């Protein structure tokens, strides 16, 4: 019960943040849309299959979650340490997983609003056609993808807690390549089987691939059958959560030993 309350407590500021600052939301919606527009006109100029425009809109919507995982989850404990919140969180009796789960829930909500608006506006503005093959499977893929990428974010968060600055650079470094490798805007299979298999360790790759197949059918040129992808995603989700839990505990212990959970002047 404590941990449920704690998770909701931590989710609250994120959810509120999304609603209370309408000006942020405006940019959050507008900027991804501009990015999407660029890709779409590019594909149109090349005379690509119209389904590719749908890929872009889907990728654009999922980008909201991915960025939230990178900057709102992985990097978050680093921020919290810098601002002095981390130590106040860590003296409380809540489980560290509850803290991160709260961050994830709040983040999903905030990113969800952005993703949904991108999706709807994208569909309206660019006349994207989607045919849902199997709605239940689609929902399952979407949920499991979210759990897996946020699980990955949680694991990285524990690293950031101690190795803030270095981890920060890595996150920055990863942002662009992952856009490419994970196939946000095109079927990942185009990268060749090996690159795409390696990229599949990053759950967003498989999630996107599976969702593309569910929404656009054979044009999506899937990596593997959706059910396989879902299975791998479930395994990845569980693995990331287990690793996150273990890593958090380890990093907190190490931080207490080395005096790095707090800044010197706090």
């Amino acid at each position, binding site marked *: 019960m404590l941990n449920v*309350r704690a998770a909701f*407590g*931590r989710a*609250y500021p994120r959810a509120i943040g999304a609603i209370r600052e309408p000006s942020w939301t405006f940019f959050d919606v507008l900027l991804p849309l501009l990015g999407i527009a660029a890709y779409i006109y590019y594909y149109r100029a090349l005379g690509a299959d119209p389904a590719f425009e749908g890929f872009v809109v889907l990728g654009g919507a999922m980008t909201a979650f991915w960025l939230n995982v990178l900057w709102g989850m992985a990097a978050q404990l680093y921020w919290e340490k810098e601002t002095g919140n981390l*130590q*106040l*969180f860590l003296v409380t*009796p809540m489980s560290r997983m509850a803290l991160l789960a709260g961050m994830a829930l709040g983040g999903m909500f905030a990113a969800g609003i952005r993703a949904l608006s991108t999706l709807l506006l994208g569909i309206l503005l660019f006349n994207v056609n989607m045919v849902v093959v199997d709605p239940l499977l689609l929902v399952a893929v979407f949920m499991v993808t979210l759990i897996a990428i946020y699980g990955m974010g949680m694991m990285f968060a524990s690293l950031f807690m101690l190795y803030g600055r270095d981890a920060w650079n890595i996150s920055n470094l990863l942002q662009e390549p992952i856009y490419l490798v994970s196939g946000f805007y095109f079927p990942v299979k185009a990268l060749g089987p090996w690159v795409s298999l390696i990229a599949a360790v990053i759950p967003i790759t498989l999630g996107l691939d599976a969702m593309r197949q569910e929404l656009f059918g054979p044009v999506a040129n899937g990596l593997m059958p959706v059910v396989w992808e879902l299975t791998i995603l479930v395994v990845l989700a569980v693995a990331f959560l287990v690793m996150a839990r273990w890593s958090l505990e380890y990093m907190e212990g190490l931080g207490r030993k080395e005096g790095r959970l707090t800044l010197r002047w706090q």
Partner: protein
Amino acid sequence: MPPAVEVTALSRVFVGKSPVVALDNVDLDVEEGELFGLLGPNGAGKTTLIKILSTLLLPSKGSAKVLGYDVAKETSKIRPLINMVSGGEISGYGLLTVRENLWMFSQFYGIPGKVANERIDALLHAFGLEDKADVKVRTISTGQRQRMNIIRGFVTDPRLIFLDEPTLGLDVQTSRAIRDYIRTWVRSQEGRTLLLTTHYMREAEELCDRVAIIDRGTILACDSPEGLKRRMNRASTFVLDTTHFDSSVISNIAGVKGVSAEAMKEGLRIKLVVEDESAISDIISSVGASGGKVLGLNKSEPTLEDVFIKLVGRGLE
């Protein structure tokens, strides 16, 4: 009943390019129900001790127990029972209101919403912060923020609370309000313990049942303020007013236990702790020899500050 805090041969070393011994073989007990103060200059190790007791930092050597539980191994037993606030901290999220921030932190202790809200209301009232309750935290002043932080500490109704320089940088009125609250809080229910650190002598003297004077990681003395002052029995304290001169010569004179000089508008106000009053004549002649002029000399009742000067050899501020 175990003491609220039981520290035995505790050391903490920060390894690095040049290792720092922040705590050096510290022994300390704080009884349940006590209002206990740690008094020491910058870098003495006060915050380090609080971090260890509040489970944020591990001891390098020795042991520390909080409410009977070991800080290294039994953190999950300790954390629900304690809370910590440090002066000047920036806690929570600027986007949330004061009330929302307090509510969020109360949830990390699993306090049911209704109970939390009642406590928050009562504390906002006690600290005169009701009119800011629904204002975003990023718009309130430093002093208001600090009051909010203190409320955050008490909202969880801890058995033991650590306050690291709770009145740092606050105006006289706010400081007094906080001190009054602290006093009432400890006394109003049995088994509540409060450990605070401070730079302010007056605060320690006025507030604390017992005070430990700490410098360079070592506890120099630990007693009630009266007990500490009684230790001054043989030493005498004087206040010497002079024109400006280099007062560092005084500390080398035989019989001088401690010197603290403060620059005033007209000259220096020097607080002296001497073992033997005959040292005073040497001091006065050394003032003249160093180009100063004595403007006044008074014998004073020992204060906690004098105890501190005697033990540490220098003043605090």
